[in-house]
C-alpha cells in the first residue's frame, strides 16, 4: 500500500452472477461478493479452479451481465444501460489480460492488427504511419521488437504471446487491468518474466491490477492485498503479509499450509492441513457456510446461518462464524 490516503478506484458491492444451466438448475458462480480496489494497488484474487474468479473478473468488466449487485468505477456504475460514448470511455479505462496465450490471439490476424485493435476501435491514430509507430512502441514496451509486427500468433512462444496480449490491452491506455491467471499457462521460467513486466508497467504507468491466480505463492509476491474465494464467495481479504502470517479463515489456513517452505528443517516439521472431501458442486452448494463440509472447525451454526462478511481486524475481512462474537463467545 503505497499511500495512506487511499482512493477507491473500484467498488464491488454484493455482486452476483448466476448462470442458468438448464430449466431448473442455477449455477451460482459468484454469489454476493463485495470488495474495493484502491488506486495504484494490486489486489490478488485466489481460489481453487472453478470457484468463480474468472466470472468475477468478467462480470466486473461487463463481459457478463451481473445478476445482482453493482460495480462502481470511480463512483460510476459500470452495469446497466449506457450510451455508446460512455461505453467507449469505459472500455478504454478498464482492460483485461487473459489466461490462455493460445486462445487469446486471433490466429488469422497479424500481431500488428491484434495490437492495433484498440487503436482502430477508438480511432487513436490519425493515419497508418502513426498507427504503426504506436504499435512499434507498444511492442518495445513489452519487450518484443518491431520485426514481429507482421507475423502471425502461431509463430510465437507462450510467453511472447502473453506479451502481445499485454500490448493489446495497453494500446488504449487503461488505468485498471484485470489479469486473469496471466501466467498459469506459462512455463515456470517464463512466469517471472511476465510478472516482472507487469510490475514494471504498473510502476511506470500507475496501473491498478486485479490479479487473478490459483497459486498463492506468486500472488503474495505481487499483490498488496489478497482476497480468497471459495465456491463463489469471498471468504477472506487482507493485506498480503497479514494474510500469509495470520490467516483467519480455515480455508486460507489450509491453502497456505499446502505451500512448501524453502527451508528443509521447517518443511519437515511443518504441519499440513488436509482438507477432507471434494469441492461441492456450485449448482447445489452446502447450506449456511459453503466451506463447512470440509472445515475442520465446523460448528452446528455453520449449517444454518450464512457467515457475515465482516472486518475482524482493521483491514482484515473474513466470513467465518469463528470470528463472529454472536456465535463464538470465547472468540478465537
Amino acid at each position, binding site marked *: 500500500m503505497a499511500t495512506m490516503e487511499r482512493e477507491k478506484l473500484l467498488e464491488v458491492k454484493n455482486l452476483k452472477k448466476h448462470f442458468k444451466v438448464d430449466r431448473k438448475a442455477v449455477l451460482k458462480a459468484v454469489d454476493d461478493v463485495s470488495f474495493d480496489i484502491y488506486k495504484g494497488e494490486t489486489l490478488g484474487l485466489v481460489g481453487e479452479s472453478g470457484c468463480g474468479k474468472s466470472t468475477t473478473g468478467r462480470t466486473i468488466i461487463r*463481459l457478463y451481465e451481473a445478476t445482482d449487485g453493482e460495480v462502481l468505477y470511480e463512483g460510476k456504475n459500470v452495469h446497466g444501460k449506457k450510451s455508446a460514448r460512455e461505453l467507449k470511455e469505459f472500455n478504454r479505462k478498464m482492460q483485461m489480460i487473459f489466461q490462455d496465450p493460445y486462445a*487469446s490471439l486471433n490466429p488469422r490476424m497479424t500481431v500488428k492488427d491484434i495490437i492495433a*485493435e*484498440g487503436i482502430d*476501435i477508438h480511432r487513436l491514430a490519425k493515419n497508418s504511419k502513426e498507427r504503426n509507430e504506436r504499435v512499434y512502441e507498444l511492442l518495445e514496451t513489452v519487450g518484443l521488437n518491431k520485426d514481429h509486427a507482421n507475423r502471425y500468433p502461431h509463430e510465437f512462444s507462450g510467453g511472447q504471446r502473453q506479451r502481445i496480449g499485454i500490448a493489446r*490491452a495497453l494500446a488504449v491506455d487503461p488505468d485498471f487491468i484485470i489479469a486473469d491467471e496471466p501466467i498459469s499457462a506459462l512455463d515456470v521460467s517464463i512466469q517471472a518474466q511476465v510478472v516482472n513486466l507487469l510490475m514494471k508497467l504498473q510502476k511506470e504507468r500507475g496501473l491498478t491490477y486485479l490479479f487473478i491466480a490459483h497459486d498463492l505463492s506468486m500472488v503474495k509476491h505481487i499483490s498488496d492485498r489478497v482476497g480468497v474465494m471459495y465456491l463463489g464467495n469471498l471468504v477472506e481479504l487482507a493485506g498480503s503479509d497479514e494474510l500469509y502470517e495470520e490467516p483467519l479463515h480455515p480455508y486460507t489456513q489450509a491453502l497456505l499450509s499446502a505451500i512448501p517452505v524453502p527451508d528443509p528443517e521447517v518443511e519437515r516439521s511443518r504441519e499440513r492441513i488436509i482438507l477432507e472431501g471434494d469441492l461441492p458442486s456450485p449448482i447445489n452448494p452446502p447450506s449456511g457456510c459453503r466451506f463447512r463440509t470440509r472445515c475442520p472447525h465446523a460448528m452446528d451454526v455453520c449449517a444454518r446461518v450464512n457467515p457475515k462478511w465482516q472486518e475482524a481486524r482493521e483491514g482484515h475481512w473474513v466470513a467465518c462464524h469463528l470470528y463472529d462474537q454472536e456465535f463464538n463467545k470465547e472468540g478465537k
Partner: protein
Amino acid sequence: MSMTEKKLTDDMFQPAAMDPGKHEEITKPSLTYWQDVWRRLKKNKAAITGLVAIILIVIMAFVGPAISSHGFDQQDVRRTNLPPKIPGLEKVHFLGMDGVDIRGNDQYKLKNIPKDQYYWFGTDSLGRDQWTRIWKGTQISLLIAFLAAAGDLIIGVTYGGISGFFGGKVDNIMQRFVEILYGIPNLVIIILFILIFEPGILSITLAIVITGWIGMSRLVRGQILKLKGQEFILASRTLGASNGRLIMKHLVPNTLGIVIISMTFSIPGAIFFEAFLSFIGLGIQPPTASLGALISDGFKQLRIYPHLAIYPSVVMCILMVSFNLIGDGLRDALDPKMRK
C-alpha cells in the same frame, strides 16, 4: 575412448557471444495463413491430382462441344448407336475406338458413313454425338453443382451465423425450425418440389438447396458458438468492438476454412444427387443432357451399347473423386493441428 586421455577443464569453455536482442528473433519467413495452407496443399499429391483433373474437365466442358463438328441436339436416325471412333486410335483395335461394336461389326461401314466422319464417343439411340453431349452434360452438371453449393453457402452461412452469433432465444427458435425441416425426409420434399415446378436447372438446384443448406448451417453455427467464447473474442469485446467488427474481423476469417471444406464436399454431393434425380426420371429433360441423364439413358442399353453409359460414368467418377481428394487435402491443410 576414456576420459583420462583428454581432461576437460573449465578454461576450455567460453560462453558464446549472444546479442540479448537476438533471442526473440524469428528467422522463419513470415507466411499468411492462406500462403501456409497453399504450401501444405501443394505437398499433397492426391489433392493436386484432383485439382488438375477438375481444371481439365472444366476446360473440356467448354472446349469439348466446340471442337466437335456435331451439335449436341443434332439428331440423325441413320446414324444411331454408333460405337466410338477416333482418328489415329482407330488402328489400335483393342482400345475399342475403331467403330466396331461388341459383336465385331464395323457399324460405320454397315451404315455407309463417309471415311472422314468420326464420332469420338459414338452416338446415342437418336444419332446424337455422344462426345458433344457428354461435355454439354458436364457443363450442366457442374452448373447445377456450383449453383447448389452457392445456395447452400449463402443460406447456410447466414442462417447458421445468425443463430450462433445471437444465441439464446433466437438460436432456440431457429434450431427448432431446422429440426422440423430435418425431420421430414428430404427425398419427399425434393420430389414434391420437382413435381410442382417443371424439372429444369433452376428447379433441380432449388430442390437440392432446399434441404442441403442445413448441414452447412449447423457447421457454421457450431463454429461460431465455439469461437464466441474464445478469449480473443472476449478481448475484442472488452476493447469495445462492434458486432460488425467482431463478425468481419474475427468470426468470418476463422469460419472460412471449414466453409470451404464443406463446399468441396457438397459439390460432388450435388452432382451425385442430380444424377440420382435423373435416374428416377425427375432430372434434366431432353434434349438437354446432364451427366446423370446420359448415364441413365446409357444404362438402359448397357449390354448392347456399353459405350453410352461408360464414358459419362468415367467423367462423373473422375469429377467426384477429384472433389473428394481436394476436400480431404484442404481439410488436412487447414487443420491447425497439422501445423509444423
